[in-house]
């Protein structure tokens, strides 16, 4: 115990201890200074990456919205009823013609041929230049009235960067206006008289809205 007390009160080697203490303080201060500087740098880089990811996804969303807006698809049903004989019904379509007509026509043809289905869905990627490809989960749905007549069409597209660190989800909503039109004409006389009824249902895509996040 006495040896420890003597060692404790000894003043030999105090300079070395002071120097080592100073080294410790200097090391801690250096680490703090460099860490704070690199944190600021990292934050700036992260902000840039976040902004770029947002621009990539919003560019794709705006392109889809503007490309689909104003395009239309029409379903034409022609029924010819002769005075004598049985009536005949023919169906035809006036497909969409815009840049995204391939997508819209495929969706509408799918819904036309699959009566029981209330929606069409597909997933595709949008790639432009050196930008990261944007994944789009595309839905085209319809709402039925009394299980037969379609009252409403709509599009929902969920856009995101699958491989990016940034969470930049966006939702595109586009509504479709359904416009039914029926015209009836009568031609011929007496036995050759026939009535032609043309029923046209036109779906026109309205201006869409883009919201941040994966909204329903």
């Amino acid at each position, binding site marked *: 115990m006495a040896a420890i007390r003597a060692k404790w009160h000894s003043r030999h080697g105090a*300079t070395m201890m002071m120097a080592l203490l100073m080294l410790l303080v200097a090391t801690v*201060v250096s680490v703090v200074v460099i860490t704070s500087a690199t944190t600021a740098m990292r934050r700036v880089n992260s902000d*840039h990456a976040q902004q770029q990811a947002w621009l*990539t996804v919003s560019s794709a969303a705006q392109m889809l919205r503007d490309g689909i807006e104003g395009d239309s698809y029409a379903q034409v049903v022609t029924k010819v009823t002769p005075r004598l004989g049985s009536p005949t019904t023919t169906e035809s379509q006036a497909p969409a013609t815009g840049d995204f007509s391939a997508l819209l026509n495929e969706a509408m043809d799918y819904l036309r041929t699959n009566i029981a289905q209330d929606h069409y869905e597909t*997933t595709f990627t949008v*790639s*432009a230049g050196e930008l990261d490809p944007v994944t789009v989960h595309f839905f085209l749905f319809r709402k039925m009235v009394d299980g037969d007549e379609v009252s409403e069409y709509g599009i929902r597209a969920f856009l995101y960067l699958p491989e990016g660190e940034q969470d930049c989800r966006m939702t595109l909503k586009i509504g479709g206006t359904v416009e039914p039109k029926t015209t009836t004409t009568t031609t011929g006389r007496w036995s050759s008289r026939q009535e032609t009824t043309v029923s046209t249902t036109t779906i026109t895509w309205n201006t869409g809205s883009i919201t941040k996040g994966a909204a329903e």
Partner: protein
Amino acid sequence: MKKKLRSRGGETLVETLCATAIIVLSILFLCVSAITAARINYKVQNTDTTFRYGGAGTQETVTIENVSGEEDLSIDNIAITLHQVGDEKKSESQYTYYTYQK
């Protein structure tokens, strides 16, 4: 006072040299870290991360490819205008976006 002056007690030369070396090393550490931090801060201050729409664009095309694989959807002729904005000398601070016109 006389006793203090005549005393033979004190640090050896090796101890003094070692202590001086450690102090010099500590000061060096501080200086290097301060200079490095100042350089990083200067770079951060000069990095313009603000985004402004604009800039001349180049004509490009967008490719759309199906992921699910069930249907064959491929659209590759959609014309867009690709814009690059920001400091041209610093590619890391540039932003890229595109616009579409019917």
